[in-house]
């Protein structure tokens, strides 16, 4: 369990004061030094080593014919062995930043070596196959990272692998959607954000239960929320286009939705409101695509600028935006809460322009809507304790 969680639990039990808890956390991270300076040092050093590693990959990609292939491979493996030795030394000396820096270079060098092998032996194959191989061989080391970067790199690699796989014409996706194995249809891409959100948040929830995978959980959670936001946008746009996602494109969602909801709702150390809000968001995100498939007649005005569809799109995105805003509020993330409220405000503006196409009516509509929002917010604030008590009675 991370030290912050341990100390906050000790503070809650009254074993130590909150000031003592914070001092313990600071000491564990920095040995007493300023935490911010450590974070800045870590970030810049990691950035530098990533740039170096990418430069080395680029040197390999130039495919220097003057260097015999056996020598290229030999140097690659010797470098790996050297880096491995450095990582082991850093572990023995308990040098966390050096450990993570060398681990990052090792992980990226594994990717470079995979590319070198492909080059030397002129292997065919798709980029996602090479990326998947690389992810598999560096996963154990990524799990042993001292801080966030190695797991972050791995999670980004997984997302890159996923997207290169989906967008590949030889992939399962293309084979399922089209019998002639042509490229993934553009309409099916609308379903991609919600599918991504489902599996990343599922993995976040699973990783959150294991202390060793804490940084994986944080990263999957981050990208899952980004995917949710993109899914809200995609769902909004979907109601204004006349293409329809295929049933087959939703098969992964049917698989991941129950798994993700079970994992999220049963997560032990998350607040109930967080879990419920996230679950509702994911459910709504999928309903956007299921409803037109289940009730095609009711949704046949899509893509024709029908007011009904525009209002439906706005209702979905504003509702989802509101749920996301509440989610960030529950997590005490004030900046993201404000950002979501601004986006909701912009969406209000857009819908009025879409429906009325006239400045005067738009202005009037916005004034009325704004007043409604203000009255609602003040009323909610005043009645909040009563509403919360009622809600708690309801779930008891």
């Amino acid at each position, binding site marked *: 369990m991370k030290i912050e969680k341990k100390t906050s639990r000790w503070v809650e039990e009254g074993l130590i004061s909150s000031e003592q808890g914070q001092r313990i956390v600071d000491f564990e991270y920095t040995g007493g030094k300023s935490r911010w300076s450590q974070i800045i040092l870590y970030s810049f050093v990691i950035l530098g080593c990533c740039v170096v590693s990418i430069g080395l990959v680029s040197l390999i*990609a*130039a*495919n*220097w*014919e003057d260097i015999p292939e056996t020598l290229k*491979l030999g140097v690659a*493996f010797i470098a*790996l*062995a050297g880096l*491995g030795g450095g*990582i*082991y030394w850093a*572990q*023995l000396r308990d040098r966390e930043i050096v450990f993570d820096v060398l681990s990052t270079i*090792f992980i990226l060098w*594994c990717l470079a*070596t*995979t590319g070198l*092998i*492909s*080059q*030397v*032996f*002129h*292997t*065919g*194959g798709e980029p996602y196959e090479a990326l998947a*191989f690389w992810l*598999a*061989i*560096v996963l*154990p*080391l990524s*799990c*042993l990272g001292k801080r966030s970067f190695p797991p972050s790199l791995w999670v980004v690699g997984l997302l890159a692998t996923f997207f290169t796989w989906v967008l590949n014409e030889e992939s399962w996706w293309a084979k399922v959607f089209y019998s*002639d*194995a042509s490229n993934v249809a553009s309409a099916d891409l609308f379903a991609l954000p919600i599918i991504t959100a489902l599996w990343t948040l599922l993995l976040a929830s699973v990783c959150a239960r294991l202390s060793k995978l804490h940084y994986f959980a944080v990263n999957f959670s981050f990208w899952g929320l980004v995917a949710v936001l993109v899914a809200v946008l995609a769902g909004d746009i979907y109601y204004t286009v006349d293409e329809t996602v295929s049933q087959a494109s939703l098969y992964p969602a049917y698989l991941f939705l129950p798994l993700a909801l079970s994992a999220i709702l049963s997560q032990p150390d998350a607040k109930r409101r967080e879990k419920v809000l996230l679950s509702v968001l994911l459910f709504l995100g999928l309903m956007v695509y299921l409803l037109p498939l289940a009730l095609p007649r009711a949704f046949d005005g899509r893509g024709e600028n029908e007011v009904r569809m525009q209002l439906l799109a706005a209702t979905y995105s504003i509702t989802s935006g509101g749920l996301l805003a509440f989610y960030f509020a529950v997590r005490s993330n004030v900046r993201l809460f404000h950002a979501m409220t601004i986006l909701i405000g912009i969406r209000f503006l857009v819908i009025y322009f879409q429906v009325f196409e006239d400045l005067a009516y738009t202005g009037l509509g916005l004034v009325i809507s704004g007043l409604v929002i203000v009255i609602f917010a003040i009323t909610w604030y005043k009645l909040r304790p009563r509403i919360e008590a009622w809600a708690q009675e309801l779930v008891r």
Partner: protein
Amino acid sequence: MNIKHKGLLLALAFSVLALAALTGYKAFKMYAGVEVVFPITGYDPRDLLSGHYLTYRLDIKEDVCPGPNADPVFVCVVQRNREILSIGTVESADRRAENGCSAILRGRCRGGRFVAGVERYYVPEQHSSLLDRAVRGWGENARQTELVISVDRNGRAAVKELLIDNRPWREFVKSETARAR
């Protein structure tokens, strides 16, 4: 002997050994199979050179594709003195002897064209244009281009060498570069 941090050592060894195993497997595929020489040709000028590798297709004139997207397809190659005598299809990769095949190449058909996973050859950046013109073979740049592949008993092929006018591509580049000077 008490080894510290066994988990870390295992994680590091796993990565290195996996890469070593991949290298060994690719090298085995390249050197242990039956050598076959195939003529090649460019099929799409726009995609012939992508990054720093050449893309091309095996120049198989016979119709070996039972359908536009059949998978897998086994092509029987009868070869003598590096000259292909005949090409046909068989049911599986283990029918080499009974069909008199020098090698059976496993691939798939994509859009009616046979693809064996050897349609890519990495080239150094500085020679990419010269090799591109040679493989495309337009006008005065027309060259005899062939690919030497190694086919194992499962029909899987590995690229060994690119030949231009019956010479390894390095020799071709050297002579062309000397001629240009």
